């Protein structure tokens, strides 16, 4: 498998704190790469670095071989990287459909922006497809702010999908969800990993071990271990540092 997103020696320092230290990883389409680790291990910082939201102190990021380091998040997004946020980050006063449609529109060139929006626009149908993939087809016309917490988490992923990315960075998509919803999400994540390169940051170990193809364990900003779920489960270092009795 050829890597579509490559991080090489990424580091990020916040004052005296080295939040991410020399992390390298590669994401390929068809693969779900899970990143786990205790709170403060640098997982969210890593996602923010990969999405271009934060500048790395050292290291570089390549998408399809192009160096995109320091280009800014909106340019990285245009290179085909979609992300969801740990804390729901949407337009609550707009409809569910408009939330997703704006993500589609992000790829329209400046000249195309002076077209008036019609009901049958291409952007509308792409947004509807993304919404139906995350199970929100019925709620398309609702105001996003009126959705339940679980539906908002679905919309987070729907918006990321609507941008038609090749790479999906999902930062704790299951935050605050019950066990039944986790089940549905696991199915969705498996489906998404078929035609995307997925990076999943998640605390729910049942889901992570059920869906991941590869795993990276982080501790204090460093990569502790990287390998298949079986290898991670068997690793003594990981057990000591993080998983403990939970596996």
């Amino acid at each position, binding site marked *: 498998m050829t890597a579509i997103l490559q991080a090489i020696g990424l580091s990020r320092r916040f004052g005296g704190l080295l939040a991410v230290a020399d992390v390298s990883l590669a994401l390929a389409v068809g693969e779900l790469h899970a990143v786990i680790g205790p709170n403060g291990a640098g997982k969210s910082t890593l996602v923010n670095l990969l999405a271009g939201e934060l500048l790395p102190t050292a290291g570089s990021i390549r998408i399809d071989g192009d160096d995109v380091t320091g280009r800014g998040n*909106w340019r990285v*997004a245009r290179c085909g990287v979609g*992300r969801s946020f740990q804390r729901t980050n949407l337009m609550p006063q707009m409809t569910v459909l408009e939330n997703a449609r*704006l*993500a589609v529109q*992000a790829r329209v060139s400046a000249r195309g*922006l002076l077209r008036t929006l019609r009901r049958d626009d291409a952007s509308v149908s792409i947004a509807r497809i993304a919404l139906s993939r995350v199970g929100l087809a019925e709620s398309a016309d609702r105001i996003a702010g009126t959705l339940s917490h679980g539906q908002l988490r679905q919309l987070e992923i729907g918006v990321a999908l609507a941008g038609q990315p090749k790479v999906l960075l999902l930062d704790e998509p299951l935050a605050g969800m019950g066990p039944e919803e986790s089940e549905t999400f696991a199915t969705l994540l498996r489906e998404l990993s078929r035609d995307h390169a997925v990076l999943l940051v998640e605390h729910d170990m049942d889901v992570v071990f059920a869906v991941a193809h590869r795993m990276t364990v982080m501790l204090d900003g460093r990569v502790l271990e990287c390998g298949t779920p079986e290898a991670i489960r068997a690793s003594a270092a990981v057990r000591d540092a993080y998983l403990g009795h939970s596996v």
Partner: protein
Amino acid sequence: MRCASPRGNLALALAALAIAAMPFYASPYHMQLASTAMIAAMFALSLQLLVGGAGMVSLAQAAFFGIGAYAVHLLARVTGGAPSILLSLPASASIAGLAALLIGPFALRTRGFFFLMTTLAFGQMLFFVFHDTSLGGGADGVFIQRPVLGAFGVALELTRANRPTVFLLLNLLVLTVMYAALWWLMRTLFGHALLGIRANEDRMRAMGHDVLRLKLAAFVVAGALAGIAGHMAALNDAFVNPELLGWHRSAEALLIVLLGGIAALHGPILGALAYTLIGEIGQSITERQRLVEGLVILAAVLLLRNGIAGIRLPT
């Protein structure tokens, strides 16, 4: 910010007809008053693209209004006579838009309160350019030659008698075209992107929108529209002074937007009509006109969350 429904636009069209018919029933004084209100409406409408559209509260808007007005004077100095309105109107819009294009990249590096302060600073800088240098004719202002209403030797002769009627209809035409253009603009993908920025700028950026460029485009269009409003003011008054660029005029436009309704594109039009009316009534009943204005606006803002445009008649 929503755009008026077809029924809402019909109501606005009827109001426009009532204004267009003023020469049949109203005095010249009242027609002049309506012209003043319509120019205020154009000015506030230009600001509404920023405030209601993209959520950018700017205090530099009067600077672009003033530049549009001064452009008429400067153009007349360059051409050595009264220019045609077909030349002066685009010139005012372009020069004001150009000023916005120069200021925008700096001002747009800031957001929220800091954007407010940065635009205040840039606005005041431009104010002092006209106040303290000889560029525009000095601190006291200058009387200007009105642009000619026509071109290529054919022009409408302005007399003291027909002036209120001609200006009334001209201002109505410009206001109508400006509103229609903004109504269309807010329905384009660009307009939708602005609303997205107002709702959640960070997420728009994360989606891949070039937020800075979108905001700059809005800032320039709004500046050009304010320039058009300034042009109409200069035409109306045949006089320009640096006060046109002062920050309190920007604040007044914000007040009109707030009074009319921040959540509706046509809010500023209703706001400007109401604001002019309140001032007029206040003047007729007391010498403390500003006190009446203040109290009415305070009441309107406290009681009407979405301004006058938010009033729903029981059906």
